[in-house]
């Protein structure tokens, strides 16, 4: 695979380019996964950490709050590591044993990067439930969230009037809320509040 410069990857990620995401996944993810798996995690945890890590990295790029004093690989690994450590601390506080953290990668000294792990998980949860809604609901909510007017939504969706568009919006939003509220992962947020 072609090696890209850190800047090229960051620019690609800023543009939501799938090539950048793929590059990070192939080249950076194995290290993060290794850390998660060595510390009470499973493959799915590692995949979740990867998603959250990319989103956090993207937000840092977008808001210009990223200063690379190391390689992007190290930076991304530190994000993922921080996410997983916070998550362990939050969810499995009793299971988390710092002594057992196996830092076998000497080149990857942990860097203190601020990550809002809980927020990242909430976002992932909301997104996943939104993406699990019926396509028409996804479309309606997407348009509402993009601040489209009721008239525009009614026209786009072929609804007879704006009142029906409004009702559909409430129903879809309600469906989404119910799905999230019934998700055991969501309930865990309240256990630690």
């Amino acid at each position, binding site marked *: 695979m072609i090696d890209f410069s850190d800047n090229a990857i960051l620019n690609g990620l800023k543009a939501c380019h799938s090539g950048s995401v793929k590059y990070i996944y192939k080249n950076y993810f194995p290290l993060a996964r290794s850390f998660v798996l060595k510390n009470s995690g499973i493959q799915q945890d590692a995949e979740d950490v990867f*998603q959250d890590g*990319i*989103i956090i990295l993207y937000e840092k790029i977008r808001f210009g709050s990223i200063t690379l004093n190391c390689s992007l690989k190290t930076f991304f690994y530190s994000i993922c590591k921080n996410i997983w450590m916070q998550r362990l601390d939050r969810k499995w506080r009793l299971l988390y044993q710092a002594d057992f953290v196996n830092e076998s990668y000497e080149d990857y000294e942990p860097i203190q990067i601020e990550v809002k792990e809980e927020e990242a998980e909430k*976002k992932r949860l*909301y*997104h996943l439930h*939104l*993406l699990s809604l019926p396509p028409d609901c996804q479309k309606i909510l997407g348009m509402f969230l993009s601040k489209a007017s009721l008239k525009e939504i009614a026209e786009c969706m072929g609804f007879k009037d704006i009142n029906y568009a409004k009702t559909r919006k409430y129903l879809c939003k309600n469906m989404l*809320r119910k799905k*999230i509220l019934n998700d055991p992962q969501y309930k865990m947020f309240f256990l630690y509040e």
Partner: protein
Amino acid sequence: MSDREKLPELIDRYNNGELTDDELSVFLEMIKNNPRLRDEVKLDHDLNDILADTDILELRKVIISVQKKHSKGKRPDLYLILLAASLLLLIGIEIHLFMDKTRHNPTDKSIVMTPLKIKVQDYHQQVNKPDLKMETKNHGIAAADQKPELKIADNLIKNPSLENMIGTTRNAGYFKILSPIGDHHFCEKEGITFEWTWNGSNKVELKIIDNKGANIYESGLLSQNKISIPVGAIKPGLYYFKILQKEEIIYFGKFVIE
């Protein structure tokens, strides 16, 4: 519309600041007394904030797509393992079938003879070595798709009733058969010789019957302890013979003419 049915709308309008004063006071009272509703309102507020960032939602879709593709990309490894296992299984089956086919459908003379010999031996063990006829369509050099046929002539089939009679009887006294012993095989072209020891005062006679019980040969009373049957007098097959004294059987045996 009931208040319950109106709730989704009220939640949405509350978070968008669209409720009238009267609606707001009623709704706040509902929230105060309903923790579940309170959670819903909070969640709705979060959703409005988080889902409004459509760029991140789009990025999420990209990430999920990459993860899915990667996991699909890994599948061939599993497929390869399954394929390899299937191939091994097929090869195993093929080898088994080939071995089986080779045993029954030889393509080489040297291969032909060994399994056939085994079959002959097996058969002989089963029938106490009676003669048998084997016919291969290719006379030993069989084509791959030709199967040798093992035919047992009717005159080689053992007669269970006669088989049970084999051996000396209580009248035998000091009679002892010297030849043929057991399931002796004679060659058709060599002639057949019967020989025994007998110190009885009476003469004995020899009778030969085929495997169906039909009389084939009667020697009449014999003064000596040996008799030869001329070559060609008896056709190949399984035969039983009896040595009699005063028409009483003193010995019953069998032989095969090949």
